[in-house]
């Protein structure tokens, strides 16, 4: 019984939040890794692209709510999500035409691209703050929980309750669908294969008659969709704040690098590695320990390895370890 209680507590506070957060990071890291694979630079504007997409989704969610449209038990934001994606696609394509294309034609060094993406980051950040303000926004509605802690306790008779938030369920299901679609696209369609070919060997792709500009635009469109979905899911699960999204850059980059920059599979693995480590290292294990350890060994403190304020330190530490021992990441990425 104690063991079951411990497992439920673990699921409730570590596994489920970790899986949801991991899915969000994985979607974010997929965007970073695709840009890296195709356009060959680390896009510092990715966090703000996520913020922009989420912002548009939020604005349309509010509009729908004011019209009285809702998705029943599901959050209205899911209805607004496609609109957010379209707007973000428009934004990144315009950005690419107006900014990045020039440097592509110049064959500029990657570091110049990174610098340019900083400028884009600034502008997107300013734009988002200008439209929606720098504050915290909550936009989730519908049923808050799939399983409530009390209902779970009554059902199972355990002391520990298990609560699964709707946002967590939606995150995981959406992430699975999106990743499945993405991998189907990359591995089975002609366009997807041409993207992989371009990422693998640009010159040979050109020789094979693959149109680089088309590959680039399709990449941006996919990245816009991924960023908006990742951002909206994160916002539903926690809350939306422009600065938080900018800060997500670090765990997202860490996930992409840990997995191997340029490798989509690696981005997903990296997302979960980072998210799980973050949650596990900042979780107070007292409760779980109290169930499974004998009385005499039960921790008297919180048994928390690091305070939650240091969650960035966790991403960073993992990043450093990977850079030191295996710079190409778990799944061999492109960069050294």
């Amino acid at each position: 019984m104690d063991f079951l209680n411990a497992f439920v507590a673990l699921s409730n506070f570590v596994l489920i939040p970790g899986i949801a957060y991991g899915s969000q990071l994985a979607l974010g890291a997929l965007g970073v890794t695709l840009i890296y694979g195709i356009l060959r630079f680390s896009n510092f504007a990715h966090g703000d692209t996520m913020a922009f997409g989420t912002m548009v989704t939020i604005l349309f969610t509010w509009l729908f709510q004011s019209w009285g449209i809702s998705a029943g038990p599901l959050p209205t934001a899911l209805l607004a999500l496609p609109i957010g994606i379209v707007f973000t696609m428009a934004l990144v394509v315009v950005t690419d035409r107006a900014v990045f294309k020039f440097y592509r034609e110049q064959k500029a060094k990657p570091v110049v691209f990174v610098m340019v993406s900083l400028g884009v980051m600034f502008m997107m950040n300013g734009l988002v703050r200008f439209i929606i303000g720098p504050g915290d926004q909550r936009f989730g509605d519908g049923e808050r929980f799939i399983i409530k802690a009390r209902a779970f306790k009554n059902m199972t008779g355990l002391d520990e309750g298990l609560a699964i938030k709707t946002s967590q369920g939606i995150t995981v299901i959406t992430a699975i669908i999106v990743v499945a679609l993405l991998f189907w696209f990359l591995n089975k369609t002609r366009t997807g294969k041409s993207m992989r070919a371009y990422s693998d060997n640009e010159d040979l792709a050109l020789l094979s008659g693959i149109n680089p500009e088309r590959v680039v635009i399709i990449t941006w469109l996919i990245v816009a969709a991924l960023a908006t979905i990742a951002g909206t899911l994160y916002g539903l699960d926690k809350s939306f704040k422009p600065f938080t999204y900018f800060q997500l850059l670090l765990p997202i980059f860490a996930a992409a690098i840990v997995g191997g920059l340029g490798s989509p599979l690696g981005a997903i693995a990296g997302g979960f590695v980072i998210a799980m480590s973050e949650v596990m290292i900042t979780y107070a294990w007292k409760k779980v320990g109290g169930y499974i350890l004998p009385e005499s060994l039960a921790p008297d403190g919180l048994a928390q390895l690091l305070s939650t304020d240091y969650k960035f330190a966790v991403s960073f530490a993992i990043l450093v370890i990977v850079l030191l021992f295996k710079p190409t990441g778990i799944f061999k990425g492109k960069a050294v």
Partner: protein
Amino acid sequence: MSEPFLIGDSMTGGYGKGPDILHDCTIAVNSGEIAVIVGPNGAGKSTGMKAVFGMLNVRSGAVRLAGEDITHLSPQERVVKGMGFVPQTSNIFTSMTVEENLEMGAFIRTDDFSDTMEQVYHLFPILKDKRYQAAGELSGGQRQQVAVGRALMTKPKVLMLDEPTAGVSPIVMDELFDRIIEVARTGLPILMVEQNAKQALEIADKGYVLVQGANAYTGTGQELLADPEVRKSFLGG
């Protein structure tokens, strides 16, 4: 003598705005023949071939394919015109399977290319066995077969190979030459650059010896092999 199928006629030029590397250099290949470009290191062998393929700034002279002037076409446009090119290095998509490599070779084709793929598999049976393996995991010789197979997927009218045997063992080299002869037997003209001058000239209908970006000796493969000057200078006696 009628015009060869593909000819780079009196080409002079270099990379971008750089100095001229080729000087009045002529390279040609006739229908159904194998033409080989040989010469010492730095003689401009690969450069000559790249000029024919449009990767060089040709300042004077012309490139004609089946009588049509293609001097000002980009490499991509030349692929559409029917030229297949296998670069010396990075000539496969290492992270993709053998079959996907061939599919990418056929990217510009909108028709059904499954028979072409069968033909390639027929020419290179080993590729059929490894069709679902990542091309980067194959051996050097097998990679070259993938590279040639990829170029064949566009059903080119002429195939250009840049040092196909670079860096492979002598046994694999012999096998590769056999394969190339087999490809040529299907009626496809082949223009190739080779380090291993002796073996290459043995299978060549036509040979070009380049020195310092200019034609030094030209003749059939047998003629060049028999030429004492060529033997002394380039074939090691």
